[in-house]
């Protein structure tokens, strides 16, 4: 029941989510997460590069996020918490994801499941230099 065309569509969506790609690439953050594709979420201070595993997020299917967390000035940054909600319905997931820090500096966030089709929002709390910041990113799951 896999749909390669949908996987491609998602990959394109991820890249289109970077309105200012040149600015993102200029920062000292390893965007390539091993498969040459990913999603970048950033603010004035922080940058996150994410790749779902498997790449296609399907309704009801558990997935993992592989992540790099950086500051734009190259300072160490930490992923503190992650959640996902459906903003329209104001409810979250039925599962509690777990953050695992890898020896390669990447994070693995395991146990994510989007159990309904529609608009979801990733909520990511990151910390650097003693300051916390919340980043969000919307995804549409069909």
């Amino acid at each position, binding site marked *: *029941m896999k749909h390669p065309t949908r996987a491609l569509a998602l990959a394109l969506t991820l890249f289109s989510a970077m309105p200012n790609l040149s600015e993102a690439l200029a920062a000292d953050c390893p965007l390539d997460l091993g498969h040459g594709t990913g999603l970048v979420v950033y603010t004035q201070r922080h940058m996150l590069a994410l790749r779902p595993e498997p790449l296609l997020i399907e309704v009801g299917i558990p997935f993992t996020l592989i992540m790099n967390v950086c500051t734009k000035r190259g300072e160490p940054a930490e992923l503190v918490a992650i959640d996902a909600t459906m903003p329209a319905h*104001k409810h979250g997931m*039925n*599962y*509690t994801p777990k953050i695992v820090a890898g020896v390669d500096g990447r994070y693995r966030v395991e*146990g994510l499941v989007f159990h*309904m089709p529609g608009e979801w929002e990733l909520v990511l709390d990151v910390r650097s230099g003693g300051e916390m910041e919340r980043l969000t990113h919307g995804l549409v799951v069909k």
Partner: protein
Amino acid sequence: MRRLALLLAVAAAIAPVTPPVRAQQLLEWTPKEIDAVGQHGPWPPNPVRDPTNRVSGNPAAIALGRALFFDPRLSGREAACSACHLPSLGWSDGNKRGHGAVELDRRTPSLWNVGFRKWFGWDGSADSLWMQSIRPITDAREMAGSVELTARLLREDATLACGYRKAFGEAPAGSDEKLMVDAAKALAAFQETLVTPRTPFDDFRDALVRGDRAAAARYPVDAQRGLKLFIGTGNCSACHFGPTFTNGEFGDVGIPFFVRPGEVDNGRFGGIERLQASPYNLLGRFNDDPSPASSVRTRHVEKQHRNFGEFRVPGLRQVGRSGPYMHDGSVAKLEDVVTHYSEVSPDRLHSDGVPIVRALGLSAGEKGDLIAFLRSLDTDIPTLLPAPPVCP
């Protein structure tokens, strides 16, 4: 030659008259709608193979599981699994609530397409079909059997013992608990084969997806309108998602919690507690899958306040033939289910945002359309084939 002509003439005269094919209409379907309809197929999916069950898909285990399913000796009160899960009633019993040793608080769920689920029981207190199969056998309120009784049956009945050897590749030895779990795994292997056939909806779905307008137009117009409601303004497919018409999760659809005065059925909330307390969940030693992938849901599920009163979203294939409805059988007919969703009280449902379940306010025509669509998920079931020998 003249004789042949005469025979043909006679044959033509007595041939049944084929009723004229009624011209149907294909409504306009947008690409977005076609994509949404396409999500409900194709059907049937590939056969179930459960990596947590080493005999899933094994023909000998399926034969053993079928024999056990119909064997009243598993029970302490001479009632087989099939006493409540009747093949002739869609593997349910047609009753409002299950009748075991006592009357139960919930309806006997149909076993159609059960192998495709991720959670089992109305409250999801089991994370595998084999785990779920243990509970009714040993529950004093249901079959009132026991681990010891099941193990003894496998060891001492020559045919079942032979069937066990064929299925598991060894004699039925070891602890009673191991044999109980293996019996449950054979039962699960059998239940995984209970897959509904294709339906009129499936023919429509496939025709629509491949752009065959003539074939798609054979699907009744009222069912097409009902399907548009289902995937559109009704938002039914938010939960009744995918080829089995369920996202496999849980929801509160406004059915009262109280099972009797002063006593509530807390649904998924208690289900998660029972799941996590059980030695038979997928985090335990009986999971045959060495990879962590199969137990990811179990590792990450945690009970939340909103789980209180949530129950499993049922699949909708054969829905027109599987009443009464809801987890407690409190809704008698399919028409009443549609009326429930048309009129459900917002006071009963708690939502801070746009509610997923809300009163749809359907007209009589819209209700009829929705029912026509739902009934297109029904089909006649072929007669159950004779059981293969457990041990030739």
